[in-house]
């Protein structure tokens, strides 16, 4: 089945079997391997991308559902430099192995879009659909807080 979408600012088209998942389209067809697949039950959130500006777990959406949509992956997030969320994840040591990180970052960016000044509890709740096995989440929550301050114009 043919589909057209805008991927990280560039119009792209593909012809894939109907059952192809968006995550597989992004990884296998378009080579956007920053979108990671960590489970098959929509629990881990490693595959989180933005579809029309909203965070979506791309392993649970069919590729054809993204026909006509604007999709942003981790590779397209910081088109003109690192996004403050990306920087904060590094500076706060919010990643170790880095496998969950693209999904965490994409989910956090959407979280901050919806709530620019979240509390620690709101961040924890907002990221409860993203699993991390390395960090214990302590520094991830700190990173989102720092990014929030940066994006509000307060230097951390």
């Amino acid at each position, binding site marked *: 089945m043919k589909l057209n979408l805008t991927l990280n600012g560039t119009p792209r088209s593909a012809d894939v079997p109907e059952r192809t998942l968006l995550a597989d389209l992004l*990884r296998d067809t378009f080579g956007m391997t920053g979108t990671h697949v*960590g489970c*098959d039950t929509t629990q881990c959130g490693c595959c989180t991308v933005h579809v029309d500006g909203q965070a979506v777990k791309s392993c649970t959406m069919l590729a054809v559902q993204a026909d006509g949509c604007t999709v942003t992956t981790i590779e397209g997030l910081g088109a003109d430099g690192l996004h403050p969320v990306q920087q904060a994840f590094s500076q706060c*040591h919010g990643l170790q192995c880095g496998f969950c990180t693209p999904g965490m970052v994409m989910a956090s960016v959407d979280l901050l879009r919806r709530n620019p000044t979240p509390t620690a509890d709101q961040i*924890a709740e907002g990221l409860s659909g993203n699993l*991390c096995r*390395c960090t214990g*989440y302590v520094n991830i929550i700190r990173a989102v807080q720092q990014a929030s301050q940066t994006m509000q114009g307060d230097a951390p």
Partner: protein
Amino acid sequence: MNAPTAHALLRKEDQRLITGTGQFSADAQAVGMLYGHVIRSPHAHARITHMDVSAVRTAPGVRQVLTAQDVQAAGFGDLPNAVQVKNAQGQAQTVCTMPVLAHERVLFVGQPLVWVVADTALQAQDAAELAQIDYDTLDVVVTFEDATAPGAVQLHPQAAGNTSVKFEAGDRAAVDAAFAKAHFVSDIAIDSQRLVGAPMEPRAVWAWHDEVRGMTHVHTPSQGVGGMASYLTHITRWDAAHIEVHTHDVGGSFGLRSSAYSEHALVMLSARQLKCPVRWVGSRSEVFVSDWHGRALRLHGHIALDAQGRILAMRFENQVDAGAYNVYFSTHIGARNLSITMGGAYQVPALHMSSHIYFTNTVPVSAYRGAGRPDIAYAIDRLIDHAAHQHGWDGLAIRRKNFIPPQAFPYTTANQTVYDSGHFEAVLDHALRISEPQGLAQRRAQALQRGSLLGRGVAYYLEASGPGGAAKDQVRGSFDAQGVLSLHALTGASGQGHETSFAQIVENEIGLPASAVRYLAGEPEQDLVGNSTGGSRTLYGAGSAIKNLCQQLMTQAKPAIAALWACGEADITHAKGEWQEVGGAKRRLRFADWIASLGAQAAQVHAVGEATSGMTFPNGCHIAEVEIHIATGVAEVAHYWAVDDVGQVISPEQVLGQVQGGVVQGMGQAFGEHAIYDRETGQLLTGSYMDYPMPRAGGLVRHFHHETHAVPTALNLLGAKGVGESGCSGSLPALANAVTDALRQVGAPPIDMPFTPAKLWAAIQAAPKKP
């Protein structure tokens, strides 16, 4: 957007990982790549009565179908078992190894049975559906009681009573004598339940065969290419010179990625036979039933004390579930890792341990973060805490009375382990000082007003960090024309940030900025000797070799500096990477400036650093305050304080990160994680993230406070002790002691992990006292 600056990032690894440009094994694509799929056993124990894969072979896109016969025809052996021990009578352990593909029988749900290779992953999966396999199901055993019951179904004909070995360590007679004269005795049995390790990156491997060089290249996550290559050589029986392992980014490991699995061997075989690159990527559902599980231990501890509360002896009787086969480290865990520190941080005159290693119809067990160390640390501390309360003593006073005092180091335990250094009472005092002990009564009262019981648990752990299997660790260092130092070694990271810490060691030693150092792990440097990552040893193991390398580089440079300054070598000295002229013009020159001035000549400055590092003993005091909501049984960690003696610290942020991650993994085990098998069918009931409760953001710990208390070791060049696993070792007893303390307030007896809301609620409901 803020303009990015390289130095604004904390670690060298981060740039690629936060931008999605890391190289994980499932990211690779190659021209002509084929895709493998494994048909797995749906039964826990069955005879295979009929297998017809002809429809699979003729399905669209299928290139190859392999069964056990094909693997045998290729000359492949079984998966490795790392250690074999003897029982107390000197008889060798019964080792039952796992075949790459099952033949005739299957022994656990998820066991690989048939291998299908097709043009696409979906075609391979679709074709697998066409296999016709008939099973004659057999009785299953998934518990110790069922496996060792008289008349129980036998998993392996050679393993009577489903027993692999009854291992013993220590001095049984001395312990019996001590118990006979003891004034007080106590005992407690604790479970360290079976866990799923679950690194976030599912297991993956791809391979291609280079016909020209006769080399099979294997790309996979590992903890070090050397270990992985040796296991692959063991299975395939191919010439080691014809296997090259490549490891790039690794999405978490925790012990699980040290092993070669069936899929590695199958990918390699297909790549050679089909002359195409072949890839296999496990789904999460698959790796739940095929990545080795962890823990699966039951430890029954006994303690004998004199009238003054001095420990006379300790004894542990362990049940060690190997799963269906002996793979890799289950024996190492059950025999060595449980026994080596079985006296903990205490002076115990007599020690004895028995470990009954047995088989069940479950996924084989191997290393998971700590691999027996957190389990024994947990058992020791629960035992001491339990004994103190049973006999009406202060738990801290008993610990202080029995600590190995600082003047006793090096200290040889009753079972001949030599601890090199430690100051346990100082670390305990440090932890108490920061953990606000004076406000406890008030916090308990406040918690009660919120409808919660607050329990406080103090734990002291000690663990052995791994000496490693290789005799030494080597690191090759060489410069390019830009003065960038490349470090090559075997040990591989999976989140520990070696690239950053190793660069910091170089910066500390010779003043080369971290930006001018790169670490290349996982490049096949087969002429180097070294250990894989494991046992929390890499920072001080390979790190010491880097320090030695830096020392050699300074020595090499000395004649050149002397020539440059036209003085004698005796007239120059160096400190922190800077050369100084002792007399004369007192000139100074930084090593980094000198190497940069050499241009292309810098390539001639190179060396292989090496170091032999002894086993170290990280230890620490962890204190937890846990609130249990009376109406729901939901537990929350209100405060967590940890003070760890991990020796000299190189990278404070990363040490903190390791402790936080380890403690939260411990919380996962303490409060929820449990790989549960159905006793009748042997089906894994917690087979996905939907029913296996991974720790999630928030909800678990409100305030986390960590400090280090360094008592350096002289057993490696850096004075570091290792930190990777201590978070698990400290948190299990601290959290369990806190929960036990909370339950004690309503008169409820201790219960076993995991402390799920249902169990806690039931314990409080059944308790004799009302809150």
